[in-house]
Structure formats: structure tokens, C-alpha cells
């Protein structure tokens, strides 16, 4: 089976859900509106059992058992869309692709304009080369390396000044299907900590305090890791083909212990989002609790650590739908999406959800 691209989110710019085709050849369209965190609905899909049911996300605690373990990605979403200008006066946008490393900013260049233009239609950015001087987020920087549109800049400012500038000038990375500007708080989870994510680890968005404390009351443990969720699209075919790029992750001792304990008592490990799957499965392969995740999920992959997955909704044809087949057979996933469509669920990354367990 051919490997599919690993996109954390639907890529509506590239594969409009209106055009996605189901297994039976029927068109399945999901709504594309944002859903309030408290109102998110959930399609519960059996991993082994041939079941597909519609419920509320708030019912999650009742769908899990005492002794199960829910693992979230606590990376906060960066204000990763930054305005820059080259030494020649050309404007560009830098989209951070990962965490800020000291004074280093790594990301992808886009030409003048903003997110309201689809990424693949954006003007070409200025061509930058190593040692070029630029301005980024109002600060002076030097190009440390450049490979086409992928660049690494070194900002000449101390960390306090750099972080102040990032948050004063940066905005959350957005795409054309969502023209209105999102405030930073709209793309954070309830438990966001270090700002490592280029885009929101959005599967955790409906985990309100009510749900989190409800899980705890039922004896379902919650643990965290940090995974630097990268960009879901750059608008450049060659770059997009290689997504997801290697991403940094860190799994604390406490979480490793919780996984071991869960295994020992026969509980199930439920990952909130594919970034959590990528971190846990990469760690299982490499034996390293923190490092760089290189694993690429595909329909043929069989998870070693993760038993269940909470995700957004995606239609057949979208890359994310394809990789869900690592958890459940395609025909069951298609039925789930048909059920979601019949009840008006939203496939937006800030929309409704599914649980495969």
C-alpha cells in the first residue's frame, strides 16, 4: 500500500471535502463551521467491534473505563505567522515550522500577502541565502541557512526581547478557508504549556475542564507529553509531499510510568490527536523518551503503544482520513463519516470529533 501524506488537519485548500469521494463513490460532505468547545459532538467508532455511534464529546468519560489512560499533547500554539522584510525591501511572511530554539527561528517563507490567499496561490517570497540580513517581527536577523523556501534565521536580540516581539507581532498560522483573524486564545487547549506547536493540536480542543475532571472522577488517568506539531500545509508541492517533517517531542517520566501502569492493569492508552500517536510510537521505536519524531503513519501502520485515538473528522480522500485506517477498517470509517454528515457534524479543525477505540 502506498504511503500517504501525514497531515494533522484536513487540508481543505488541497482536497476540498466537497470533492472527497466515499468508498461507494458517493460524495460525503461535512459542514465546515467552527463548533463551540462545549457543544462538540463525537462519533464513537469501534476498533475491533463493528460499531459506529453518535454521541456528545462530553460523554467521553462514560465511553472509557477505569484504568484507561488518556494522553494529550500540551504544546501551546505559537504566534507563528511573522512579517518580515528582506534587505532589498521585499515583504515576506515566515511561518514557523517548529519551536523557537534560543534565538533561532525555523520555518517556511511565503511571499507578500496574507492567509486569505490560498497558500499555493501566494506570491513567491524573496530568495534568501545564508548570511543575508533581514528584519523579522521588527527585529534584525541573519539567515543561517536557506533551502528554497525553508529557512533558518538567527535573531539578534536577547530571549526576552525576542519573545516579546514574537507575541507582539506574530499571529496564529491560518489558512484561506478561515478568513477572519483568530485570536491566539481560540487556538489553545485548556492545558497548553510551552509554545511548541506551529498549529493547534486541535483534537484536544473539546477537552474542557468538565470533561477532564469527569475523566479523573471515573478513575481514568490523564497524562501529557509535548510534541511540536508542525505545519499542515505550505502551498509548495515538493515541501508538502515530505510532511510531516521531523518534529521534536518530549515525554516525561511520569507519563512513561503511567503507560506502564496502564499496561500492567489491562487499561487502554488513548491518544488525543495524531501528534500524540507520532510521539509515542516514535519513542517506542527509538527507545528515546525525548527527541525527534520521524515516524510516518500510514494505513498499514499498526500502533504498538496506542490503543485508541481521539481525532477531528475527515472525509475519504483527505490524507488524515487515510491514516485513521491504522486504527479501524476503511468501510467502518466511511460509515462513521456518513453518519456524521447525516447529522450535520463539522469537519473543521475547530469542529466535531471522533473516538476510535
Amino acid at each position: 500500500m502506498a504511503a500517504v501524506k501525514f497531515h494533522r488537519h484536513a487540508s481543505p485548500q488541497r482536497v476540498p471535502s466537497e470533492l472527497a469521494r466515499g468508498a461507494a463513490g458517493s460524495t460525503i460532505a461535512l459542514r465546515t463551521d467552527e463548533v463551540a468547545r462545549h457543544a462538540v459532538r463525537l462519533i464513537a467508532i469501534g476498533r475491533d467491534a463493528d460499531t459506529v455511534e453518535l454521541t456528545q464529546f462530553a460523554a467521553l468519560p462514560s465511553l472509557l473505563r477505569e484504568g484507561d489512560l488518556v494522553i494529550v499533547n500540551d504544546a501551546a500554539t505559537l504566534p507563528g505567522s511573522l512579517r518580515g522584510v528582506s534587505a532589498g525591501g521585499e515583504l515576506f511572511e515566515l511561518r514557523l515550522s517548529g519551536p523557537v530554539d534560543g534565538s533561532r527561528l525555523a520555518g517556511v517563507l511565503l511571499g507578500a500577502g496574507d492567509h486569505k490567499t490560498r497558500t499555493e496561490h501566494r506570491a513567491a517570497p524573496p530568495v534568501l541565502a545564508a548570511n543575508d540580513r533581514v528584519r523579522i517581527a521588527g527585529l534584525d536577523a541573519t539567515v543561517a541557512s536557506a533551502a528554497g523556501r525553508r529557512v533558518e534565521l538567527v535573531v539578534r536580540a536577547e530571549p526576552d526581547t525576542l519573545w516579546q516581539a514574537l507575541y507582539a507581532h506574530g499571529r496564529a498560522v491560518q489558512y484561506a478557508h478561515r478568513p477572519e483573524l483568530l485570536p491566539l486564545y481560540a487556538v489553545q487547549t485548556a492545558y497548553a504549556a510551552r509554545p511548541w506547536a506551529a498549529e493547534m493540536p486541535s483534537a484536544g480542543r473539546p477537552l474542557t475542564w468538565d470533561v477532564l475532571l469527569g475523566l479523573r472522577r471515573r478513575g481514568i488517568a490523564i497524562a501529557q507529553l509535548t510534541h511540536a506539531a508542525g505545519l499542515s500545509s505550505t502551498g509548495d508541492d515538493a515541501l508538502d509531499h515530505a510532511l510531516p517533517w521531523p518534529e521534536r517531542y518530549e515525554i516525561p517520566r511520569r507519563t512513561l510510568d503511567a503507560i506502564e501502569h496502564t499496561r500492567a492493569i489491562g487499561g487502554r492508552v488513548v491518544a488525543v490527536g495524531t501528534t500524540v500517536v507520532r510521539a509515542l510510537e516514535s519513542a517506542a521505536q527509538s527507545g528515546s523518551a525525548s527527541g525527534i519524531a520521524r515516524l510516518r503513519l500510514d494505513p498499514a501502520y499498526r500502533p504498538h503503544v496506542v490503543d485508541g485515538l481521539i481525532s477531528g473528522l475527515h472525509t475519504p480522500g483527505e490524507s488524515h482520513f487515510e491514516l485513521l485506517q491504522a486504527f479501524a477498517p476503511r468501510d467502518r470509517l466511511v460509515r462513521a463519516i456518513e453518519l456524521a454528515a447525516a447529522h450535520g457534524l463539522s469537519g473543521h479543525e475547530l469542529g466535531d470529533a471522533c473516538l476510535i477505540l
Partner: protein
Amino acid sequence: MQIEGTGALITGASRGLGRAVAEQLAARGARVVLVAREAGPLADVVAGIRARGGEAHAVAGDIADKNAIHRIAGQAQGLVGEIGLVVHNASTLGPTPLRLLLDTECEDLAAVLEANLVGPFRLTKVLAGAMALRGAGTIIHISSDAAVEPYPRWGAYGISKAAQDHLSRILAAELDGTGVRVLAVDPGEMDTKMHADAVPDADRAALQRPADVAARLVALVESNVASGARVALPGWQP
């Protein structure tokens, strides 16, 4: 809780009690983030802490500004990682000289509530989730005896502090069992700019020094005082 190595965020940290708390936490090995509206005075305090070998970072931001909250939390966690201790110290009296409550403009009362009550609430909302997932953290609200005693002319401030005391208790109740501790602390009267603004003719010699109060506050952070408590520092014994 252990202070060494902990990420600590202190608001209103450019002077008075906030400054003294930040300095003492840094001296004890905390990784301190100082928040205040004005970058200039903050930079001086940070430079002083660093000169003494401590780790300190400046975040300029107004706690009363809704859009500043995620910036403050993001910058802080970008600089020092997870925050294990928050001291909500920034607060405003409203217009001075202090007026009778019935002479207070509605907008002035609302602005005081925004800075002293809603701002800390918003910041806690952003930071408490990560604490709960890790099963540890301390959130401190700096209160006042004006939260309990109905002093004439202290209306806007007193109302905000009374509400903040209750915010503290409700947060503690909701976070029960998560390992996150929420405390309200009445520091007592101190020789600060705020006190001088409120009571210009006070006998300064009779007031506590902020550094002495900060030392007791640090001891309280290290103590096992239970979540939900309101502690009057002048009578408190570690």
C-alpha cells in the same frame, strides 16, 4: 512546594511586594518571570536579579488587557517552560485620592475589577491546566484586609479583593484533588507606593518592609498550608 528550578510568574513585579517576591524567589533558585506594564522599571529589576546570579525574565504586559493574557503566558513558558507558581500581585486602587464608593464612577469600578479580579482569573485559566496535568502547582492571590473590612473610600479596591478571595476559594474547590493549590494572602500594611497613594500621611516607620513580607510569603509557598486557605501573613507562623 520546592522553589528551586520552579518556573514562577509574578505580576506587578517592577516594585513593592511583587519585586521583593521575585527577587527572593530568584535568590532561592526559581526561574522567575516578572510581569509589569512598563518595560523600563522592569528591566532594572531583572538586571539586578541577574547581577546577583539569579534567573529572571521581563514580560511587559497589562494584566487588565484581555488580549495580553495569552501573550504573557506564552512568553513566560517560552522563556522558562512550565509555570509551577503564580503570584497574582498586580492590582490597582482606582483613582486616588480614594473616593467614597458612591462618588466612584461606574467605569472606574469596572476598571478596578478588570485589573484585580478578571485579569488574574484569565491568567489562571491559561496556566492552571498544565499544572493540573502535572499534579502540582501553587496559585497565590494577594489580598488585603480591605477584602474583609468595609473601609469607607476603599470601595472599588475592597470589592475587587473580596471577590478575589472568593475566586480563590472556588478555584480551590474545583481543583480539589488535582494537586493544584490556591491561596489568598493578606500581606498586611506595607511601605509601598500603593500605600503612599492611598494613605499619603501614613507613618512609614510603622509599616512593614516589602522584603520582610516577601520572606514570609516565600515561606508560605514552601509550607503545606492547604488549598483554599486565606492567610493573614502578619499573624502567620510557618
